[in-house]
């Protein structure tokens, strides 16, 4: 089963479950004796709904959710903000590391350049072993 199908199935069951609960809430909010049969039906739908959701568990055992996402949901915040912040943090860190790597490359190049002036023979040997470094 494709990844999206797995989620679609769970989503569908969750939506049905939520809708059933909502209808149950409406029945209960202004209860009439004649509504008892409908209420009983809804209660059993709730049980079957939970059974259906539980069945989805088998298909989704390989899915892991970061705990931080729950923090967002618990605070009533959009969990997409977590994804957004993760991506932004990843990019910022990526840029920072790239900056460090580039600086180190420049430093190496300058060091080799300066060492070549002082130790031309040794540096020639060094370059023979290492090969010419590409410019940073």
């Amino acid at each position, binding site marked *: 089963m494709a990844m999206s199908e797995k989620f679609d199935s769970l989503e569908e069951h969750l*939506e049905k479950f*939520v*809708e059933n*609960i*909502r*209808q149950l*809430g*409406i*029945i209960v*909010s*202004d*209860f*009439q*004796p*004649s*509504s*008892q049969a*409908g*209420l*009983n*039906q809804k*209660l*059993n739908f709730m*049980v*079957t709904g*939970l*059974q259906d959701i*539980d069945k989805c568990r088998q298909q989704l055992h390989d899915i892991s959710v970061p*705990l931080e996402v*729950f923090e*967002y*949901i*618990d*605070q*009533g*915040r*959009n*969990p*997409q*903000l977590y*994804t*957004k912040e993760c*991506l*932004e943090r*990843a*990019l910022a*860190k*990526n840029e920072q*590391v*790239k900056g460090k*790597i*580039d600086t180190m490359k420049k430093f190496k190049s300058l060091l080799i350049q300066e*060492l070549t002036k002082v*130790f031309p023979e*040794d540096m020639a*040997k*060094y370059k*023979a*072993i*290492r090969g010419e470094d590409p410019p940073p």
Partner: protein
Amino acid sequence: RGQWEHGGAGRAGQAGKMENFSALFGGAEQPPPAAAAALGFGPAKAAGAGAAPPPAASAAASAAPPAPGEGKAAAAGPFYLLRELPGSTELTGSTNLITHYNLEHAYNKFCGKKVKEKLSNFLPDLPGMIDLPGSHDNSSLRSLIEKPPICGSSFTPLTGTMLTGFRLHAGPLPEQCRLMHIQPPKKKNKHKHKQSRTQDPVPPETPSDSDHKKKKKKKEEDPERKRKKKEKKKKKNRHSPEHPGVGSSQASSSSSLR
């Protein structure tokens, strides 16, 4: 550094310099100076107050046989502890990792435009006041993980006798309980949607779709809504309410009343 400063003078100094130079490029595998001396690669510091080794020591250094595991160093001429450079294929921070993992679409989707702050924007169809913190009504997901409910491993349908426990009294719920089903922030959000729509000529894909549907639904249900309102008023006046929404269609229409 002291050795570097000293070393510019003579041949002996040169050897000392080379030692440090190699160590500079050696990286993490450098042995401590004492260990290097023991292996015969470098002069012992006790040889002199200065860092520059005597010529004899440097000669010993060049003549010393390579220690076990130093075969590579021997091949590297005067340089020892020379590590191999990391392969160019190795993935590092110098590459754009977002592009590397094909996440540009996700990046543009989430970072290109403003993501709405509230949970109700993410789950617009979910009833209830979901924007409130979960700690308020003890409905947080974290509490579900930290204190999982004590229950059986399977769900069994309710039998007739069990269902007798769900016999309710006729009549409406008290006001404070009814509030649970009312979603005042949603109305505000709808206005906000409208505002943002006027500001942004190109709205995001998914929300615009749902908005469109909502709008359509609203239009379709408008006359029906008025009719239902009238009916409800009549119901209240008569004190003889009909059977509330058991069917899905009835329920959904009553939801629009809220």
